[in-house]
């Protein structure tokens, strides 16, 4: 008989293994030379297929992994430290800020990557900053309620600003680009993008992984966390900032991808329980698998390309509804 701890380790290894399998299959999966899996034989003889795997599918799969792991881990951290299971990175003004920044980038330039990604990261972080500053001014509720409330307000401000930008955009060239970016996708992935995205994402995810147990402390209210020998304000803000950096980085590269940050942490908690020392690493793995699979569908389903953000939202909302309506739900709120 295996003990609970051994079973846990085995399950974790199995899921990590599953991620590797999905990753390898994604490299062979596509519409060239024929729709479906590329056989290893074809790959050996067909130079174009080799180039396709190395230059297109591999960077794209790596982007999908970074995207999924970042969104899911940020979702888990934000839900835990804000004590609210319905939070996702889209709250706190990050996503709307980044979307506004990207639209501004498209409007100002001819859509060069640098303009879009730098402006998206900048406004994403600014969304968080403004939410945080506004939260300090609100005279109502506890610190977490204030942060969520001001996040909603800042998000609304940015999305109305985004509406103005869409109104001003050239309907033939700029508006479709803004719209596609808002739906999100990985079609622009290449090695340069991977190299730009990897350092900030790897660094922030590593830091979050290292402090994964301590994250638990901040699901308590401030006074209790303080009584357990922590500095709740400082440590909570640090965790939020690291999460937002990783989200802003992947959002700048792939557009707004919703529902991953909400759904995956719930699934991880269902499997491993609330303790973030186990559910946080699991969340990263599951997020990566989920986005890889969605992206495989997105680039296969039609000759062209289905926006990834649409697929994650559709699958995410559907799975979330099933998860929440199942019996034996023990969420207390």
């Amino acid at each position, binding site marked *: 008989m295996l003990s609970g701890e051994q079973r846990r380790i085995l399950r974790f290894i199995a899921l990590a293994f599953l991620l590797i399998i999905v990753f390898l299959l994604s490299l062979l999966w596509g519409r060239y030379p024929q729709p479906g899996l590329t056989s290893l034989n074809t790959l050996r003889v067909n130079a174009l297929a080799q180039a396709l795997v190395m230059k297109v599918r591999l960077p794209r799969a790596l982007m999908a992994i970074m995207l999924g792991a970042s969104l899911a881990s940020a979702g888990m951290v934000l839900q*835990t430290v804000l*004590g*609210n*299971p319905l939070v996702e990175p889209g709250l706190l003004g990050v996503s709307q800020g980044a979307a506004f920044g990207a639209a501004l980038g498209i409007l100002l330039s001819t859509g060069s990557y640098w303009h879009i990604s730098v402006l998206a990261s900048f406004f994403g972080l600014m969304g968080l900053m403004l939410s945080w500053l506004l939260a300090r001014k609100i005279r109502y509720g506890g610190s977490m309620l204030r942060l969520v409330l001001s996040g909603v307000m800042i998000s609304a401000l940015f999305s109305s600003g985004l509406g103005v930008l869409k109104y001003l955009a050239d309907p033939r060239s700029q508006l479709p680009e803004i719209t596609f970016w808002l739906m999100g996708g990985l079609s622009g992935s290449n090695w340069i993008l991977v190299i730009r995205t990897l350092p900030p994402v790897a660094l922030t995810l590593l830091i979050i992984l*290292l*402090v*994964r*147990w*301590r994250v*638990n*402390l901040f*699901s*308590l*209210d401030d*006074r*209790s966390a*303080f*009584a*357990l*020998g*922590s*500095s709740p304000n400082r440590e909570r803000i640090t965790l939020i900032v690291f999460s937002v950096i990783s989200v802003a980085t992947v959002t700048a590269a792939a557009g707004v991808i919703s529902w991953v940050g909400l759904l995956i942490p719930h699934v991880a*908690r269902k499997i491993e*329980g*609330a*303790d973030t*020392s186990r559910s946080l690493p699991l969340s990263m793995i599951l997020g990566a698998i989920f986005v890889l699979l969605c992206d495989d569908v997105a680039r296969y389903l039609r000759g062209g390309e289905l926006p990834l953000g649409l697929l994650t939202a559709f699958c995410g909302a559907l799975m979330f509804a099933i998860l929440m309506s199942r019996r034996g739900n*023990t*969420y*207390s*709120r």
Partner: protein
Amino acid sequence: MIEPDAAITINELFFTWPNAESPFFKNLNLRFRKGYTICLIGPNGSGKTSLMELILGWRRADSGYVGIGGRSIASIPSRERGQMMALVPQEERISFSYSVLEYVLLGRAPFLPPLASPGRDDKNYARNSLDRVGISHLIRRLLPSLSGGEKRMVLIARALVQNPRIMLLDEPVNHLDPANCERIIEILIDLKSSGITIVMSSHDPAIVLRLADQVVLLRSHETPVMGSPDKLLTSKNLSELYGVIARVVDVEGRKLILWGK
């Protein structure tokens, strides 16, 4: 200022609520001895919880000194503070379905380096303290499935895992049925005998009479009075404190308080 047998010293403390005009505590001076059980009693809003939060260091005074074992609370690093002093709140917001073991293990946070997770030793600590509180059978249960009394005992177990010299308990028996009430009192008597300094608040003078070595009577905007329970918990004092007629009577060697006419 430093007294070797004082666990908690409060000197010339002034405390004002944000946006309030006059100070809530004016020139407060209190000295709690090591190993004593001190009960804070007073009506709602008389500052029992605030006084505990000032001792904990969670609230900062306008001026004056709060000392723990001869050191100013403001000068004690947060980890060390967590190893000295534990708080048992009346209730705690629980947003996620932690298991009892996972929750109690959070009490080891002040002893673990920032990057560490609890190990075998920490789990043994948690098991021992669950045992001491008498709820080892709940170890695998999820928190949302527990009753109010069981949750209160989990909070006490988590505080014990901190191995504190000082324990602050906010209304530990409030809203509990008589059986759970008795169990908490037994646990507190056990803690008392192990030499922990206990500061607790209570609305119930009958419980105070059974546990307290010293009593602090708190009334909002007035100087608190400290003394032995026998001296302070009189019919006259209680009637004045709560604004209803109170009579302290002896029944079978135990003191009871009758409220109203």
